[in-house]
């Protein structure tokens, strides 16, 4: 496999800049992707990684600088041009066609043809099946994409990119929603591709993954190029320093707390076909993690507790009052808050501004008489934006223009601002950079210390182990095990999650 050396980079950026209005997302950035090499792109939220990806993908046109394909300058007029040039991209946010089948999603525009140029559906489905087998995923190619969990959507995106047999594979946080198993399978496939001479660009906020998969790493900070170097010889701390510009405190700053009375009690909760007989309690001051494999039903439990979905049996009690089924309003009134897993659909109203989004869950608190107080709204937004180190130009900007991680912070701010007594967070740090992740963890820890009960759903095992007082492990819609902090290890959680434990 070609270690850099003298050969041509397959795809390269040379001195590229890109600005959105006043925001300079990329400043004079260069990057070279070589055949047979996996290249990591590191940087905080909003550093410009996704912008760089979209530039390579032909979505954005650089303001200045060039894209080089096999050393020749090219201009991509749109995603189609980049695809033509052999670039396959997995975007940070899954972009599927909900009404079409999974197989059609994968092969849109490149369907296998039969007689008369018609689509050969059988071949297409078989091909999709083969791809999923490679990834170790049991998705049915003929089901519609609507209703797939974020993780499954991400897997379909991966299958789509793989199916292109591209010369360059670009992956923008493909693993953010995945748990260990899928990540391992994905890495095996990517490694194989790389060995076949594919150039890979990989983005992740999980540094371990960078060290495991990649040979080189380029770091961006505030849109500017900071470093491009081999991974070998680099330490975690080195990389963090390049990204953040300073050293970090402990990643999981868990404060010890004494659990108080029961704040959230879930009793024999069942939603037919999704989860069954789920019972647990969360006490004030406790952080309870809900772990499990993708699709184990964790998010579904959270949705049912919060009243998004109607449950078929069981009960949810918050601070002694039993919640009516299917009423988020009642749940909120009882002191519940849910940070949902899909920020783009469920967490944020993309067209509204940052301040409006942060105020949305607490319209009642912002009232002055019958009217909304704009000053109160602004103060609330500013306060939380600062506390979560949100990177933004103006509070009146639409959230849609924020980077993925910063959007996640807005979702957190929106719910923390409601001052809940029970906080349910579903993948709270999905797509959040290391620096902020520590911040979020500290915040959760602080909240718990203040007596808030926290139920944390996470696919990030170190996070689960680092933060939780207790770990509930779900397997196929049921609680498979409850593990106290002292006994929680990677092995114990994983074996319960895969159904191996009793």
């Amino acid at each position, binding site marked *: 496999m070609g270690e850099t050396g003298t050969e041509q980079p397959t795809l390269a950026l040379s001195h590229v800049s890109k600005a959105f209005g006043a925001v300079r997302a990329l400043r004079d950035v260069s990057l070279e992707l070589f055949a047979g090499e996996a290249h990591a792109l590191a940087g905080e939220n909003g550093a410009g990684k996704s912008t760089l990806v979209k530039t390579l*993908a032909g*979505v954005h046109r650089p303001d200045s600088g060039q894209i080089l394909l096999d050393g020749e300058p090219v201009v991509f007029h*749109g*995603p*189609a*041009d*980049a*695809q033509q040039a052999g670039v396959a*991209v997995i*975007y940070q946010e899954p*972009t*599927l*066609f*909900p*009404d*079409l089948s999974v197989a*059609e999603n994968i092969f*849109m*525009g*490149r*369907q296998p*043809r039969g007689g008369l*140029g*018609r*689509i050969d559906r059988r071949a297409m489905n078989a091909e999709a099946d083969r791809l*999923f087998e490679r990834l*170790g*995923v*049991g998705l*049915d190619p*003929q*089901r*519609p994409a609507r209703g797939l969990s974020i993780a499954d959507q991400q897997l379909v995106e991966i299958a789509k990119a793989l199916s292109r047999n591209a010369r360059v594979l670009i992956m923008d946080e493909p693993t953010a929603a995945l748990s260990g198993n899928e990540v391992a399978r994905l890495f095996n496939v990517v490694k194989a591709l790389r060995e076949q001479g594919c150039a890979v660009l990989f983005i992740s906020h999980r540094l371990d993954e960078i060290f495991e998969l990649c040979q080189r790493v380029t770091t961006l900070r505030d849109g500017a190029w900071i470093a491009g170097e081999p991974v070998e010889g680099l330490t975690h701390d080195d990389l963090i320093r390049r990204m953040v510009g300073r050293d970090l405190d402990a990643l999981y700053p868990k404060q010890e707390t004494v659990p108080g009375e029961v704040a959230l009690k879930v009793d024999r909760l069942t939603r*037919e*076909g*999704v989860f*069954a007989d789920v019972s647990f309690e969360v006490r004030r001051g406790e952080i309870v993690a809900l772990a499990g*494999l*993708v*699709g184990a*039903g964790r998010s579904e439990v959270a949705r049912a507790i919060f009243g998004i979905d109607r449950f078929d049996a069981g009960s949810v009690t918050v601070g002694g009052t039993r919640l009516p089924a299917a009423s988020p309003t009642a749940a909120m009134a009882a002191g519940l808050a849910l940070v949902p897993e899909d920020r783009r659909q469920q967490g944020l109203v993309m067209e509204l501004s940052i301040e409006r989004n942060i105020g949305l869950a607490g319209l009642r608190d912002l009232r002055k008489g019958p009217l909304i107080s704009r000053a109160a709204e602004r103060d609330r937004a500013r306060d939380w934006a600062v506390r979560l180190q949100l990177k933004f130009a103006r509070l009146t900007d639409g959230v849609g223009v924020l980077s993925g991680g910063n959007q996640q912070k807005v979702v957190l701010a929106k719910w923390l601002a409601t001052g809940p007594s029970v906080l349910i967070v579903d993948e709270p740090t999905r797509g959040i950079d290391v620096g902020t992740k520590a911040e979020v963890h500290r915040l959760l820890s602080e909240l718990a210390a203040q007596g808030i009960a926290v139920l944390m759903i996470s696919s990030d095992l170190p996070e689960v182990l680092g933060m939780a007082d207790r770990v509930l492990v779900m*397997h*196929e*819609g*049921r609680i498979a095990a409850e593990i106290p902090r002292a006994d929680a290890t990677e092995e114990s959680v994983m074996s319960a999650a895969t159904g191996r434990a009793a």
Partner: protein
Amino acid sequence: MSTATEAVAGRSARNLVDLVFRARELSLVAALVVLVGVTAAANPNFLSGQGVKDILLNTSILALLAVGQSAVVMTRNIDLSVGSVVGLVAFSAGDFLSADHSRGIVSVVILGVAIGAACGLINGLLVSFCRVPALVVTLGTLYVIQGIDYYLAHGRQINAVDLPAGLLDLGNGSVLGVPYLPLITVLIMLAMGFYLRSYPSGREFYAIGSSPEAALLAGIPVRRRVLAAYLLSGSLAGLGGVLWLARFGTVVADSANGWELLVVSAVVVGGVAITGGVGSVYGATLGALLLTTIGSALVVLRVNPFWQQAVTGALLLLAISVDRVLALRVARLLRRRNVRGV
């Protein structure tokens, strides 16, 4: 999450889902059968040769428009200008023919389709290239085209005597007992249905409607496809205008006035989601057939004319509600059967 058994379970569930989706068309057929059955039982004349012929003839133009409209709706757009286009084409085609009797049918069809296509082109360019909302644009062109039509006609009327016999024959004649009009519509519907289902570019219409954003990222030529949908809708409306002239012989300016909502109803009743991405031209055609049949059946059943409109509305609501309730039921059933980890 990946076991062989689960995949199998998923598949059988999917077959059920498939059935439900097809059931959209099936339930329409069922509704039609019930409606026709009841009406025919009350009045056998309804199913006489003349009765069936009348219904088919009445449906064909609406169905033709519905085919074009569904292509547009599938891309999450809408074309409200179709009614005006039919009116404009019907009148100008009539004018064209009555001015010179030697002009042939082919030339008038070309003229009609060309006018329709030009209207579609304007709609399409505005929607796809200028990115203005489809509803506003086509409501605007509805008014503009109607204005032009009225301006051209200004109280004149085209009479059957002014038209060549060949054209009138196209509207009322038949081959082997099947009138030409429904034949034309069915051919176009089949071609469109086949194209949309079996060709990559056809599937892109669905993709665009399902998620315009994803379509852009997938490298689909979104603008070209949307433009094509409008061109198609416009051309079919143009053809519809010529057929209108052929069928009715007498036209004043306001042919098909107000049909835009009728066409949209047909499409929606036919199961094409107004939010795009779902449905088929077969469904839309069946929707048109159902609407027309309801109208005829009420007259034949001697429903008081003052009740007719109310009953039509109620039946329309019933059709979409039953369809929806069934879909919800099946979805819930599916979820329960699809117990993960059993």
